[in-house]
Structure formats: C-alpha cells, structure tokens
C-alpha cells in the first residue's frame, strides 16, 4: 500500500508535540505506512527550503504551533506555507493546543495569535475554506497515540465524528476525570487533598480541571504508565480553548463553591449531590490507603 505523505509544519511552538510524537511506541511501524515529506527531527527527502519554495506532493498537513500573520518561518510567513499546502493536501490536522486554539503563545507579542480556526473558543473565520478538511487534536502536548491513531483513521478514509472544535469525539468525549485513580475522593467529596500524597482529589483546592476538561489522559495513559492527576498533579485543562488559565494551582471558588463544575452537570445538581455525600464520612477514604 502506498505510503501516506505527511508534512509536519512547526510554527510558533516549543516542539513539545514533535517530541511527544516520538514517544509513540511503534514509530517504525508508523513509518512503514506514512512518510514525512518534512518533519522537524526525522530525516526527510526534502529540505525545509524545498518545502517552502515548491509544491511537493502531500496528503496530510500537520500544523504544530500557534498561527500569527507576522510569524516568519525560514524567511517566509508561516501562513504562506499553510496556504501553499492546504491546497494540495486532503486533510489538515492541527497538532496540539497551540495550533488548535492559540495556546500558550497566544500571549506572545505577535499580532492576533490564534489556532488555525479558533482563538480560544472563538471561530476566527480566517481560513473558512479549510474548515471542512481540518481535524483538531488538542493537548499540550498532543498525546502520541491520539495523533497516530487519528492519522491512521484518515488514511483509512474513516468518517470521524468530530466535536465543535473539530476534535475526534472518540478521544474528546471523555473527561480527564474519567479513569482518574483519585475518583472516589471526588465522588464522596473528601476535600482534604495535600500535595505529595496518593490520596485525595485536587478539584477542591488545587485547581484540577479534570471534571470539565475533554480528553483521554486517564483512559490512554501517558508514556503508557501514568497521568498527571494520578501522579497528584492537577489537570490544567491543556486540551481546552482557554488553556492556559491563570492561577493554575488554585481552584476558583465563590463563597467556597467551585465556579467550574463537572461538564454537563448543573450547579443545582452538583450542590445537591455534594450536600448529600458530604454528610457522610467514608472511613476508608479518610485514612491513608496503605495504613495498617
């Protein structure tokens, strides 16, 4: 079967998605099925200079990094490279949160920094003609398996169900909360989390955005072994348009009541359930997990 030709274009980025991709355990298999006409690290048949000055045959354009009109890549505006290849390719994939929503470098000093189609939640309408052929895979960085499997789905011609931000629902309909090993502390409102412990939930005090952040971090683990919330680090909502929020390690509360609640759960429902569960003390969850 013919290899699918992919251009990995990095714009305003830390290259974290590039390196996260390199954590995909079966890259050699991947490279049997795909070939990079350009990749920021892996050798390719073309130089960047050739890529930006010619129309090289290509099937999928991957964009990593935030987009800004005045961001220059190898002497040419980054958006010119996008436009050149957008015409050629069948699909465009925005890789990571920067390319999807603008991400962390939204606050850099360039003009009007955004993702390809979104500036945070807002549709930019700049590249409307490309909207139909775009798939977004947000995350800071992107999860290697989510990226690779999506590329295979495109190669197979599957019709992907996408959410409003063009993210594959199969990965982004879950919340980070799903599968977190600290779930019980959330369910039963045991709200005394301290850093450095196996026990407790970071939602109440330490800014965990897991219950209202879409992604599969606790379903498809990171580096195949762990996740931030399992390790005790609050979810920072890195797959979402608003990433990065301010005061990341702190839960925004009004009169002690969290401002942001599990996605799709009304405040009244949440508070009613919380009121009930908080009334009970679950001895097992008050104790250390491994105490004798």
């Amino acid at each position, binding site marked *: 079967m013919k290899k699918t030709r992919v251009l990995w274009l990095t714009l305003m980025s*830390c290259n974290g998605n590039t390196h996260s991709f390199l*954590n995909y355990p079966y890259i050699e298999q991947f490279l049997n099925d795909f070939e990079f006409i350009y990749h*920021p690290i892996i050798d390719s048949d073309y130089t960047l*200079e050739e890529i930006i000055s010619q129309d090289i045959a290509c099937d999928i354009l991957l964009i990593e990094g935030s987009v800004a009109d005045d961001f220059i*890549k190898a002497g040419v505006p980054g958006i010119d490279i996008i436009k050149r290849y957008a015409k050629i390719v069948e699909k465009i994939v925005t890789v990571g949160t920067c390319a999807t929503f603008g991400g962390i470098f939204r606050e850099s000093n360039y003009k009007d920094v955004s993702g390809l189609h979104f500036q945070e939640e807002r549709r930019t309408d700049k590249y409307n003609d490309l909207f139909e052929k775009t798939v977004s895979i947000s995350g800071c960085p992107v999860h290697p398996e989510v990226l690779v499997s999506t590329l295979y789905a495109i190669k197979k011609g599957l019709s992907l169900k996408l959410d409003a931000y063009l993210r594959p629902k199969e990965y982004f309909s879950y919340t980070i909360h799903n599968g977190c090993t600290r779930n019980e502390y959330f369910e039963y409102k045991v709200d005394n989390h301290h850093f*450095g412990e196996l026990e407790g939930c970071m939602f109440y005090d330490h800014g965990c955005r897991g219950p209202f952040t879409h992604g599969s971090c606790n379903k498809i683990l990171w580096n195949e072994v762990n996740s931030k919330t399992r*390790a*005790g680090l609050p979810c920072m909502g*890195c797959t979402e348009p608003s990433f990065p929020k301010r005061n990341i390690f702190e839960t925004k509360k009004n009169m002690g009541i969290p401002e942001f609640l599990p996605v799709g759960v009304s405040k009244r429902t949440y508070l009613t359930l919380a009121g009930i569960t908080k009334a009970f003390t679950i001895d097992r969850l008050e104790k250390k997990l491994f105490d004798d």
Partner: protein
Amino acid sequence: MIKLIEKIEGEAKLNFSFKDNKIDDVSVDFMSTRHVEDILKGKTPLDALVINPRVCGICGHAHLIATVRALEACYEDIQISNKAKIIRELTLTFELIQNHFKWFYLTIFPFFGVKQEIAKALYPTQLMGKAIAVFGGQYPHTSYAIVGGVVCEVTNMDIIKVQRYIDETTDFFEKNVLSIQNSDLKTLNTLNDLSHVKGDLRDILKKIEQNDWQNLGKSYDRFIAFGESSYFKKGKSIKTRVTQNLAIDDVKETDSTTSFAKSVHYHDQYYEVGPLARAMIGKNPLIKDAHRRYGDSIFTRILARVYEIPQLLEHTKILIESLDLSEPSYIKPEVDISQLNAVGISAVEAARGTLIHKVEIEDLKIKSYEIITPTQWNLCGGHEQNLGVSQKAMIGLDNVKLAEMVFKTFDVCSVCTTH
C-alpha cells in the same frame, strides 16, 4: 553564503563568508522568538511552573526544575525534603539521558554516512520518558515539581518499576553504544582503553579519525558550569585549569541586532557549556585524555556527551537506592510564594549545559523573569573581536557541511535559544 540549519527544534541561519576557501566569518541568526519572558510577567508565581516547561519540547523538564528552584530561592528559608530533592534530580537526569540518545542517533549519525537510527534513539528515550512519568505523570510537559517539593507520592513498587527502566536502558547502552559493562566504566581512563570496546560510539569516533576530523571544531577551550547537583560540580575550566569560584551575578546577556538570541558571557568572555564542560570541570579521566589529545574538538565533544550517559545511569541507580520513602514528598511552605517580594535565581545542568532562571516577585505577581539557556552560551553570535563559542569553532573550516556538523555538535535547540 547563507545556510539554513534545520531540524534543530526550529531553524537558524548561518551566513558564511569565505576567504582563501576557508570560512573567515560566520554569523549565527535565530529568526523567531515566542517572548516567554514577557508572557510570564504579571502571572501568579506558581503559573511559571506550567508555562516554563513549554519553553522547550526536548528539555522542558530542566526548565521546570530551574523554575521551581528559582521560586524557592525567593525564600530566605524553605524546607524541601531530601526525598523530593532526590526525585527531582532523578527525573532531570532521565531527561538528560534521553536527550543524549536522541542527539547521538538522530542528529550526529547522519553526518557520518549513516542514516538516523530512529529505533535506537527512541527505545531508550521512551524508557526514560516512562521513568519521568512514574513520578511526574507524563513526559514531556509535567509540572510535578512545585514549591515545597514534588506532588507525587512514591511507593516501593514505583521504585521497582523505575529501576527496571534504568536497567533496561543500561542494557541497551551496553549492547549498542559502548560494549562495556557499566560497572567497568572506571577502567576506561584513556582513549587506549577504548580500543577494544565496540559499539556505535566507537564506530563514530573511528569515522572521525578516518576522516581526520579529530581536531575540527575547536573553540576557546573555556568551559563553565553553574548547576550543582549530587553529581555535577560547579566551576570553570580554562585550558584544563579548573577553578570553583563563580559568581552567577556576573553572567550577562547582550542583545543582538540580527538575531533573536541574546548572547551570554561571563566576565565578558564566552564559555562553552554542556557535557564536555562538565567532564572537564569534573576532571573525568577519559575525557581529559581525549582533550589532551584533541582539545575541545568535535571528537572530544561527542565522546563527552555520549559518555555521560552511562555515568548518569550509574548515578541514578545510586540516587534511587538512597531514597527514604518515609520522608514527605512535599512540605507546605509556611508563607505562600505570592506573598514574597523577592528575587530568586537558579542554575541547573540541562542536557546541553547550564540553564539559569531568575525571577522577581512583587505584589503577588511575577515582575520579571529572565531565562538563560545553554544553547545561548554555546551558539550565540558575538562579533569579530569577540566571537561566540560555535562561531569560533567554525572559523577556518573549508566547507559549509563540515561547519554545520561542528555547529550541531554543540546541539542546537532553536526554541531554547530564543525562547
């Protein structure tokens, strides 16, 4: 002539001028930046722990550790458990190791008529990533080191798991890179001791000798390292003379008119940082012998970097054994960091050398943040009277391809350099 240097976490432009068929001058320009230091201004201090790993996708963990130490340096007195210190050192070391593997197999290999060894680069890289993730939840871009310690609690089973990753990486290194048992490293004291050792490193060194490149890429023979750890020493080495007295305040940055990268100097002089600098300051016998023979050339530089891998692996084994799991991972600081009005400065040894962070906190916010990366030390351009380290190493070469190789032996990371 202008050469675009690619696949360096971005690009750089080298502008060469030749005289008598030799490179007579070269300017080094990094063409874009992301203004990370500006992004940090006005933020809550702890938010820097999330933003700074995003300076760089390949050495972001060093930025995390530098950030947490700079923030902690804002305290007159802050208690960090020994356990947390060891865990931080472990994860930082794992990052160094994986960076070294990637550089050797992906960046250096293609200069020697061999294709990139993707599988060899990524197998140990992924193992080290897993080891970091056990503590930090994920790699890249964890923020697990926070002011007061680390967020994770570690169990005996975690330790056992991480030890297997270390063993497997060691095994991989011995089978592929240098066919000598790590436990026998101490028997390697001279280049002659290397002669019956096999492996990919040996092959590359042989090719350097066959091509008669042993003396290419020499620079000032001045080295510096500010990051101290249980393994690395702080100091500078000038033509093998090592001194330990360094004042971090005397490290200065200068803006460039053509490049987004600021050059960095110590007492107005440029110094090389990185594994070779660390080996010279740490007086590693094998590297000292290579240096005695070939000076600060690409031979010594490549050897020093790859040879750091087994030593770091050995060190992580000792570190992990010294963990006392009964200690707390995190001790809540008595005063919240945002309440301080203070300046904190830190230096850590990242894969490519000394990384310095400096934070100023005022009125609950970050007032200013300064980041000095290893690649700024090594790669930034100076001017004719005072050339940068990599510039000096390229002068006198007779072709651009060789110059690119020399340039890349310093391991360029464009995103770090301009941040």
